């Protein structure tokens, strides 16, 4: 793990203002920003880990826990919000038993709330991994989730 992060940092070494590209690259490679990653970046950029954490947490794009196998995004953009996105989110939270930004204990799902996927005509939408589900209603949420649950869990 440490070595992967070191490899990611290498091209940016000594460059001022390279923190965000590094964080993005780390997230892309490892899926999230770990404590280890932050301290490794801190050492090589000569910054304090707190400063790095402060920068990272300013942006919503970074996550600090290992993501699940499937990413469930519930849209709460204007159109989806008007058409009941809030209820979809509540329903999803109840089914998965986690809050947005968290991952289920079995690492199967992560939940995120997003603001507009750019397909407002289909509102309200839920996006699982890269697939968009249009015109979702509360009962449909369960069906969508169950598609991604592993077979032994279903029984």
């Amino acid at each position, binding site marked *: 793990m440490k070595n992967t992060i070191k490899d990611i940092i290498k091209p940016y070494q000594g460059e001022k203002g390279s923190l965000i590209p590094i964080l993005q690259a780390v997230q892309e490679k490892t899926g999230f920003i770990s*404590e280890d990653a*932050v301290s490794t970046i*801190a*050492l090589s950029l*000569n*910054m*304090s*880990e*707190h*400063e*790095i*954490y*402060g920068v990272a*947490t*300013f942006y919503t794009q970074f996550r*600090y826990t290992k993501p699940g196998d499937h990413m469930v995004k519930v849209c709460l953009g204007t159109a989806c919000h008007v058409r009941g996105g809030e209820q979809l989110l509540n329903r999803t939270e109840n089914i998965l038993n986690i809050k947005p930004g968290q991952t289920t204990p079995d690492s199967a799902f992560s939940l995120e709330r997003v603001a507009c996927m750019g397909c407002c005509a289909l509102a309200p939408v839920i996006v699982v991994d890269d697939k968009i589900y249009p015109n979702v209603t509360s009962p449909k949420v369960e069906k969508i989730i169950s598609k991604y649950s592993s077979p032994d869990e279903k029984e």
Partner: protein
Amino acid sequence: MLTIDGKEVDFKKGATVLEVAVDNGIYIPTLCAYSGLLPFGACRLCLVKIENMRGFPPACTTPAAKGMKITTNDPELNKLRKNVLELILSEHPHSCIICDQKELCSHYHICPTKTGHVTGCAFCPNKDRCELKQVTEYLGVKEIRFPFTYKNLPLEREDPFFDRDYNLCVLCGRCVRVCQEIRGIGAISLTKRGHDTKVGTAFGKSHLDGGCQFCGACVDACPTGALSARGSKWHGVPDKETTTTCALCSVGCSLKLETKWDKIMAVRPDTEGPANQGQACVRGRFAIPALVNSANRLKYPLVRRNGRLVPVTWDEATELAAVKLGKYLPEETAFLASPCLTNEAAYLLQKFARICIGTNNIDTASFFSGTVIESQIKRSGMGAGTGTIEDIAKSGWIIIIGDDLLASHPVLTVKVNQARKQGAAVSLIGSEREINSRLVDFCISVEPSGYFPLLSGILKIIVENGGFDKKFVAGQCNDFDKLKSSLKKIDIKTIAGACGISRDLIEKLASTIISSGRGSILYGPKILECDDPGQIIDLLFNILLLSGNAEGLIPLRDEANSQGVGDMGALPNFLPGYQYIADKDSLAVFENSWSAKLPGKPGLSYPEILNSAVKGSIKVLYVTGGGIPREISTEGLDFLVLHDIYPSPLFETADIVFPAAAFTEEEGTITSLERRVQPLHAGVNPVGISMPDWKIICKIAEKMNAKGFEFSNASEVFDEICRVNPLISGHGIWDLKLKDKFTLTPVKKTARSKKSMLYEKSFWHYRGIDLTEKVSDLKILHGKIAGG
């Protein structure tokens, strides 16, 4: 020239509008601006109007420019500021700030409870010095139109020394910036954003785990009660504030002692302090009250009777001391001057030893001082370093060798940080702590045995590459050729192998020294673990000279007044002002001014005194605080006199113990590592019937009918010091009077010198007391630092 509120004023280039206003006595309300920090523009309270500028620019981030016409105060601005303040207050518990009955508060002062959360009006630890309150009063905000939101964050109390209640935080960012910009640590940062913004650490770690040094700079910077020192948060306004000098290390920080009911309740750094400029460290900021207020302090003179120490009066104790000290031969008596004594006490102690006893067996009780003073006298003629703290900040390069600066002299890291911001290359030779690597450019982990090869390697590269300051070397240095030829045999490759570092790194170090102009070298007590500490100092001085400068060599002495105790002549071979005892003329001068006969034979040094005490040739030992190495047995002594502020291990054998006043309880002066003589002022009275050291010595001298000890206060003693000691003429840095010519010392292979005793690691001590034993929170921090 610009116009501010109709007044035409001049301004310094680069100043902000806020600074111009402050310089001209115009108040602009602000919360986030803080002296020494870069403009931030977070609170939006300092909005002003500037002609021909759009909108309302904040005064703190707008650079002053020629011809500006600035309005700082009119109804429109005040309305804007009021709105901003109301928004700030809508998230800060404000019942104590906005209350039409608040003038009556002091009449019906209720006892503040120690509940954690601040919600009601009497429960804020900062209610007496709240900046938010000042701003509110200035703007005249009487009510808040917005609903109040309590953030409901948990109180953070799990770290030592200070509590954090971020429900009171207004997000001015002063704590974060002071930690980052001034201290260079960055132990906290603003995390998340929008409503969730909070000052915090990475992944919510504790401060202890996050590398916080607990210097308290954030607590001092906080305008609200969000950060508060745990020991003093409920004490309110002090009865009295006394500015004094810290005696817990040799930096010489100026501190304000806040006292109530004749007890020290809190200590804050003095912004006017020449060495610290408003900064302090964990010891100065937090450890002093617990250290001096303890119930275990010695309060009465003690005398051994039937094997037990029993309290007696001063008369009885001093009488006994006078009789006993008079009984023995001068060469059987020895004095150990604690490096924590004031200049006055050290001066009188050596005068007492020389006049009343007739011995030169007196030395500063520190191995570091002995070696260092010898080499320094060889180099500069005086037992002092050649640099000042201000030199550090102005350096182009800095070498720190043989000390963990961040733990031993934390306030100096502020200066190192300052230099580094201006482009100085900082190299640390010695410590491996991870946090250090962020504060320096080159972190070279080498054991003390590797100092000699490493430094001689650097020297060789500097000499052979020829990039040194040739003009300075030709004009002001002798023996360059001798140095050059002595370096011939040195092989960089072997050296790199011997210290376990790469040849590249040595070359990089050498080239930064050559190319960065004036530098400073800070050396610490770890050099004593080298084969020949004196030669290490020689090498360092050579490097400094080759860079074209003799000033900048700074000894990181461990104890507060190591410098002054030496200056005062508490040394076996020197009279005050480093005048050789062996020199008949200077001896005659002192015999004349003290009107007494003085012994002309140099006395025993500190290690020799300790050895003779074991062997039995020294029968009487007079110890003025400060521990002596544990392995030394004092049982062979006939008589042991002790000055101390706490019971110490020497208690088992001491025959008389005099209770001394701590540095917070006495007047006097101490001299810092930069030769700065600074005053001590008593914040409180000495505990019990204890007395300042100088007074104890005078009392014994009086009983021995000696002349020249009739002083009624410390300033009379200081006057005499100024008269007889050519170095000292008052407060401030004493002049080193450097010679015009310096000698470069050739490098020679040294045989391993025999070490009689190992240097005892002194880490956070005062008068031989381990501070971590008296201050429990310090122990936690110490464990963290020592454990990595």
